[in-house]
């Protein structure tokens, strides 16, 4: 519902102030990526320069962290897509004992504080004598990536009426053909949206990673370490800008994908 009445001035100012408070600090981060002062955050910046982009480009530690983050996020998302979809299909299409409980257990990791998940995984890994590696980070991230995919997929599965699958079978399609020609087209955008959200979540995850990463640094952890040492501080800001862009675009895309999907899926009933 859109209201035609214009809001009172005081409300407008309050809303503007709220938005500024939320987003001004982010703009400041962008600004300090161009400062000529590299020891402290002095305002206003004494001068502007593009040299930190070149410096960042030539820092091997940045590339290592970025590469690790991208690989972790990609593989966690891939795992989440497969397991999340299967789980959503089972919960929404079949009836079995403990269905509600499973639904709750799957969502739990995202409701739990990250630090709990982190400690739990760390003690589980050390108990099972699993050395920290790339795969321990992936496992940690997959726990909450699955939730995002599951939530998106289960909502869409509920709207794909069961008779669509029966109709497909009735018309001669086996299980694989039904998945390929009926299920996938109907849940595709939901999976894409869930996958992108999962990727973005994994990409900027700090807490679980600190407990499961060992000596390796993903990009957010590398940034945390950089902030402590006042050496070439604007490099951190350059990286922060990149992280914002890399995580913001998929989330935006996910938003538009699920919005359009409503009209397509809604006509199935």
């Amino acid at each position: 519902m859109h209201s035609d009445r214009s809001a009172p001035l005081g409300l407008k100012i309050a809303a503007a102030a709220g938005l500024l408070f939320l987003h001004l600090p982010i703009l400041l981060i962008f600004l300090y990526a161009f400062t000529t002062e590299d020891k402290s955050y002095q305002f206003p910046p004494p001068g502007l320069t593009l040299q930190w982009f070149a410096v960042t480009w030539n820092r091997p530690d940045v590339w290592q962290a970025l590469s690790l983050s991208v690989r972790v996020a990609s593989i966690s998302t891939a795992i989440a897509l497969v397991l999340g979809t299967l789980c959503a299909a089972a919960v929404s299409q079949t009836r079995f004992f403990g269905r509600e409980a499973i639904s709750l257990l799957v969502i739990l990791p995202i409701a739990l504080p990250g630090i709990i998940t982190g400690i739990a995984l760390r003690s589980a890994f050390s108990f099972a004598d699993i050395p920290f590696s790339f795969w321990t980070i992936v496992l940690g991230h997959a726990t909450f990536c699955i939730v995002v995919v599951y939530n998106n997929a289960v909502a869409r599965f509920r709207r794909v009426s069961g008779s669509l699958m029966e109709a497909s079978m009735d018309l001669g399609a086996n299980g694989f053909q039904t998945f390929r020609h009926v299920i996938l087209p109907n849940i595709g955008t939901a999976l894409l949206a869930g996958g992108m959200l999962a990727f973005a979540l994994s990409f900027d995850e700090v807490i679980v990673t600190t407990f499961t990463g060992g000596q390796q640094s993903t990009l957010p952890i590398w940034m945390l370490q950089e902030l402590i040492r006042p050496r070439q501080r604007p490099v951190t800001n350059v990286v922060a800008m990149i992280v914002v862009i890399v995580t913001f675009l998929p989330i935006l895309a996910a938003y538009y994908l699920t919005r359009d999907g409503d009209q397509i899926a809604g006509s199935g009933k």
Partner: protein
Amino acid sequence: MKPAVLFQNVSRHFGAVRAVDAVDLAVAEGEFFAMLGPSGSGKTTCLRLMAGFEQPTNGHIEIFGETAEGVPPYKRSVNTVFQDYALFPHLNILDNVAYGLMVKGVGREERRKAAEDALAMVKLPGYGARRPGQLSGGQRQRVALARALVNKPKVLLLDEPLGALDLKLREQMQEELKSLQKTLGITFVFVTHDQGEALSMADRIAVFNDGKIQQLGTPEEVYNQPKTRFVADFVGSSNVLPPEFVAGLGASSQFASLRPEAIMLGGSSDGRLTLKGTVLSRSFLGSANRVTVNVNGTKLHVMSPATTAIPPEGDAVTLSFHREDLHLMEAAS
């Protein structure tokens, strides 16, 4: 000749619920067969057993002489028109209709032509490019019909296909379905809870209740000679007369049915049985008057032509009917 569909002692139980309980039936080839019953009577489960969405707990099913147990839906030469039509929302109408041919690997051009022919057959030529969401309920139902028929099934299963349509459209579709079935010569098995629909369309009707077939016969048999009280009550609105009342008429002490339109207001001298009672209520239905008469504590419904004068409520009235219209029923149920 082998029956199109054969059920031998078929049961389907869901836990303790006997949705279908020891059903025997044989649908003849080329027949328009209706399964009639209230919701939960097992008629839809029977249809799903034929389609392959359910497997029988007990018994044996054959489709054109071939054993059907364990055969998945996609390997059966039957197609279904679903109650909610189940059109694929992500495909346009042409691709919906061509779906069955597509998964069988028929070439693009050939299946496009077959789908367009099928759409023309259900009187929707040129609708191929539209989406299911852009069509009315009646049009979607025609698309669902075309999508099933394009596969040239040996048996077409229809699950309450007219339930969601308004009355005018429903009557029109009844006629079209009937003539389509005559033209194509395909066996139609039709599930409905609407007795009028079953009576007007089917060659034979199986009346279901509690997972069992109560009566199987032609519309005339089921309507005029109901075997059980349930059939008498469900198919039409027959008067069910208790045994003591029937005994009072000189027949044996059994439940009997008497159609409201078989009873005439006023006495007669041509050997008809007569009853005396008082008018309880009357309502005008257009072509007829429906009068309820109290005869010694038993309420009888009478369907009287609109041209006959009706005595006011509370007045004494004489009823008469032919002896052969009184139909004795089995004691069970």
